[in-house]
């Protein structure tokens, strides 16, 4: 019983890690940029949601929609305003630019919203606990799991079933060829940034009732999402989901049976072990290069 309870709570937090890691993977697939600002972008959008819900007095539904729109616009804007100008930089230069952006965002969060912990008014409650097959699952966990599943389905439809998704996949395979074929590569990049930031915003708002809202709320979920993405294979969307769920469960089982103080280490040791066997992650494509 204890075992299954640990597994269920691991899956519940893992599904939130998955949302974070999908944003990372989506961006990596398309532009090869590891976005270190992903966590802080989610955090800032969650702060925006907080302001909309409290100071501006919006209801949860409209506030959530508005937040997602803001996230999308901010993601695209970041691409156009910051990352486009540094396109001459090396890939590492672009990654460091995102790290710099992450510092700016976390600093701004303290300056604008102050460092205290906040509670995001959330329509679901952790105090309501359902009993499913003898396992206790609270309303927030259940709700966020469902939202995560819906978001993943939406993303799947976007990438696999729309013309735009086709363009994204084309760009991720070879952006020069895509450009030659008349695909508006810049717009694809911008929209990808927007979608990635939107996924991050969903993750942030769903994490809010679990971690509460503060400038450092996304530190751990971002690391775990990143780890899940690498474990699954950085260019595979299903891999990101599986990887994150595995991280959530393993972390909880280790915490539940051995020690709560070395959980992160164990998660990373597991990743390193997997990478030694499969250097491209569980679901990633093998590296193939033309010499």
């Amino acid at each position, binding site marked *: 019983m204890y075992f299954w309870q640990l597994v269920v709570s691991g899956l519940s937090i893992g599904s939130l890690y998955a949302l974070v890691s999908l944003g990372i993977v989506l961006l*990596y697939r398309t532009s090869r940029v*590891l976005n*270190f600002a992903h966590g802080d972008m989610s955090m800032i959008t969650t702060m925006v949601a907080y302001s909309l819900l409290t100071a501006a007095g919006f209801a949860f539904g409209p506030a959530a929609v508005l937040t997602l729109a803001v996230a999308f616009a901010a993601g695209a804007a970041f691409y156009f305003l*910051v990352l486009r*100008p*540094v396109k*001459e*930089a*090396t890939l*590492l*230069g*672009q990654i*460091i*630019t995102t*790290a*710099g*952006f*992450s*510092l*700016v*965002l*976390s*600093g*701004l969060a*303290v*300056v604008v919203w102050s*460092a205290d912990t906040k509670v995001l008014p959330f329509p679901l409650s952790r105090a309501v606990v359902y009993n499913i097959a003898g396992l206790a699952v609270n309303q927030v966990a259940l709700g966020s799991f469902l939202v995560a599943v819906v978001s993943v389905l939406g993303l799947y439809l976007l990438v696999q079933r729309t013309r735009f998704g086709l363009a994204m996949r084309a760009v991720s395979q070879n952006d020069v060829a895509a450009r030659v074929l008349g695909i508006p590569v810049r717009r694809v990049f911008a929209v990808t940034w927007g979608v990635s930031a939107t996924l991050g915003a969903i993750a942030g708002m769903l994490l809010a009732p679990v971690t509460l809202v503060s400038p450092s709320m996304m530190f751990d979920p971002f*690391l775990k999402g*990143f*780890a899940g993405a*690498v474990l699954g294979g*950085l260019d595979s969307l299903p891999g990101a989901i599986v990887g994150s769920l595995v991280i959530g469960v393993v972390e909880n089982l280790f915490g539940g049976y051995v*020690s709560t*103080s*070395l959980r*992160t*280490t164990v*998660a*990373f*040791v597991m*990743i*390193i072990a997997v*990478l*030694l066997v499969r*250097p*491209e*992650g569980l679901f990633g494509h093998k*590296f193939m*290069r033309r*010499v």
Partner: protein
Amino acid sequence: MQLIQKYEEEMALVRGWAGWIGVLLLAAGLLAAPWVLKGYQLYIANIIGIKIIVAIGLNLLVGYTGQISLGHVGFVAIGAYAATHFVTAFERSAAFQWVGGPFWVALLVGGAAAAVFGVLVGLPALRLEGPYLSIVTLGFGLAVQQILINWPAVSGGRIGMFVPTPKIGPWWLDSDRGLYFLVWTCVVLGSLVAFNLTRSHVGRAFVALRDSDIAAEVTGVNLRYYKTLAFAVSTFYAGLGGALEAYVVQYLEPTMFNLYESIYYLAMVVVGGLGTIPGSMFGATLLSFLQFGLSGAQEYLPVLYGAVVILVMTVEPLGLYGRWLKIKLWSKTWPL
């Protein structure tokens, strides 16, 4: 404008009389600094020196060899703790008195300890690429910190560990000035070694690996050997930096070695300019000065730091050194 006619001239460390004047000025500045700067400014200068050493090492790995490390602070930590344990063990024994005491030996011990772990982490690097390698190093950095936290016998736990005052030969380095000479001697030696390494066949092998490891292997560069060597050398610098940090701060605690620090080191290398030793010096100096010199900016400090990083990358994608090269070229082609 001076024409380069021989290969030796191209490879020379210092080129022409202008170069020598620059070097002399730099040397004079470094020698004068301990008498011009005040106590806490010297402390900051020492910290900057340490960051330069670590950044140069990281640049050898990232800039020259193309292997990303997101956990470099883990090696810094290993160097710091190894050196501190070494000096506390031998401080009162006669074992190292004939070479002037255990303190300078401990710098090498710190470097070597870090290098051993560097080689261990470098082994998976033979199979992994790009972001996959970065997660291994990131995991390593986080693991070192967590293990130190949970292993009080090594780290002193969260109580931390106080580092004895270094003494080399008859000199107690209990003043900022004494430490300044120790740190900056290491900076100078470390940069000279790095310069010489990068202009030797080793440096060429590193660059070949970075540009195309397959092509490098085909032309006879031993991939395994040079990738591992890059890790060993780079982490030796990190360990040396850690040992010096222990002496300068005189206190060690696991949270000093967190993920942010690793990212700061990487930012120094990239902002300074990948694949250039002076670049690492520029980057480390600028970014550490921001953190240590402008703490009066209070909560605006991270905003400022991040904005400077973005600004440098936007204005000069090759980093500060790229801009420096352009200025130099511009002055060389000055129509006089």
